[in-house]
């Protein structure tokens, strides 16, 4: 039986509030996402929030005008309360992929996880890179199409198509809850040959 973990990406105040498009997109996905997380917790699936922390000395960190969002310890860097539960795990990351120079891999292995359900914002950046990185590390990768969000729908559509082609099973949160409850988690098999 697959041992799953849900990974969320960048569900943080500063990042979601960057612009109206992001706020609206996240507001729309929040009810479904929060209920999905609650059901996963009830099924005993660990929830790992990947928290982007920008380093002051990183010249590539995205600045909003003259200030740097999601710095360590700042209010804006916190995971949005609606998505967070006391028992959840928070893993700090400094780049797009949640595996990049973090202990995410070790922590998932300690939990016996072999399948990662990747969610959060934005589909075409952090979700996509974390999925690829997880795939390369040998995890079975699942992405629920209504558990990920992008400011622009066309970016999301393109990213989901890429994920489906190369490294992840695309499903929905409802289907995933049923599959996990039934112990029948889908395994990614088909890899598109470019």
């Amino acid at each position, binding site marked *: 039986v697959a041992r799953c973990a849900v990974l969320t990406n960048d569900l943080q105040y500063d990042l979601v509030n960057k612009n109206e498009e992001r706020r609206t997109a996240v507001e729309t996905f929040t009810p479904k996402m929060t209920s999905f997380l609650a059901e996963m917790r009830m099924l005993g699936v660990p929830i790992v929030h990947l928290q982007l922390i920008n380093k002051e000395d990183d010249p*590539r960190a995205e600045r909003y005008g003259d200030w740097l969002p999601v710095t360590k310890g700042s209010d804006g860097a916190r995971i949005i309360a609606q998505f967070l539960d006391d028992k959840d795990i928070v893993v700090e*990351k*400094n*780049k*797009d*992929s949640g*595996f*990049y*120079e973090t202990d995410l891999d070790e922590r998932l292995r300690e939990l016996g996880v072999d399948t990662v359900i990747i969610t959060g914002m934005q589909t075409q950046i952090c979700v*996509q*890179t*974390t999925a*690829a*990185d*997880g795939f*390369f590390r040998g995890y079975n990768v699942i992405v629920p199409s209504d558990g990920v969000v992008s400011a622009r729908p066309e970016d999301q559509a393109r990213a989901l198509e*890429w994920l489906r*082609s*190369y*490294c992840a099973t695309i499903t929905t949160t409802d289907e995933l809850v049923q599959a996990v409850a039934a112990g029948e988690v889908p395994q990614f098999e088909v*890899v598109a*040959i*470019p």
Partner: protein
Amino acid sequence: VSGLIQLDHGTGGGMSQELIADLIAPGLGSAHHGRMEDSAVLSLESDRIAVTTDSFVIDPIFFGNGDIGKLAVCGTINDLAVSGAIPRFLTLALVLEEGFPIADLERIIDSVREAASGAEVAIVAGDTKVVRGGEIDKIFINTTGVGELHHRGELGMRHVSPGDAVIVTSWLGNHSIHILSLREGLGFEERILSDCAALDGLVWNVLEEHPNDVRCMRDVTRGGLGTVLNEVADGAGVSVSIDRGRLPIQHETAMAADMLGVNPLYLANEGCLCLFVDGEFAQEVVETVRLHPHGRAAQIVGTVRERGVNAVALREEDGEESAVEILYGAELPRLC
């Protein structure tokens, strides 16, 4: 010498002398043959030499399987090698940013020594300058190389003609994808490594085994294969047709390129050559290339034709062709 680089390390005074005498010269070890005078006086066996120069500004300066020091040596060696020259001498000019960690400089000098020694190339002259913080990013390196020409055959674009075959000696795009992935933490950096390597040995093997079959060799660096093919097609007044299915592109590289919206045909490489060879002997040449550790992925990727509508055409498996245009200003910065 320890700590951080200071402006006085580049003024030519006592601190400069210390940096050179205590760190750079010992770090280069036996690869350093200079006398620390204003210029190096050198003897050569051949009456024909090749000279090239290149500057290296890669970001980040350390990557998964190399660094700017290795790159600066290998890049110049490869430029000499594809001219048919045996690389002999290099100069090494460093421009350092004030505050650059001396420990990092030590690592880079170690890499320079290792790469130069591996190719039996002597570092015969050098220079060190330091600029204020913010005036450059960490370290830039220039190397100038001198090679001896012993190969008597004629190499160059003008010798390429219809019927020749096109060989690519290694995976396309890996260096660029590795560096881009490191910059942003995209998750591909451990699966796709840079191809940075000195290819003088590979070139030597090819020219020794097939002295009359090689028309032209190019180092597939900035602008990628698409740019090299267009330059050769225009220079020789021919067209080149390549087959998509034959291009050596690692699966993960194709994934990353598709994600990033970049075309592997235009990505910079640092250990990949494009050879134009007599079509009749192309299979023998590619087999020689594959015997070398850096040539195992070599493929015959296309052919040279009479000049047609497209200077370079990419042929799909169903036979349909599209133009491989030359790039204008869309290159990714600081990959080498």
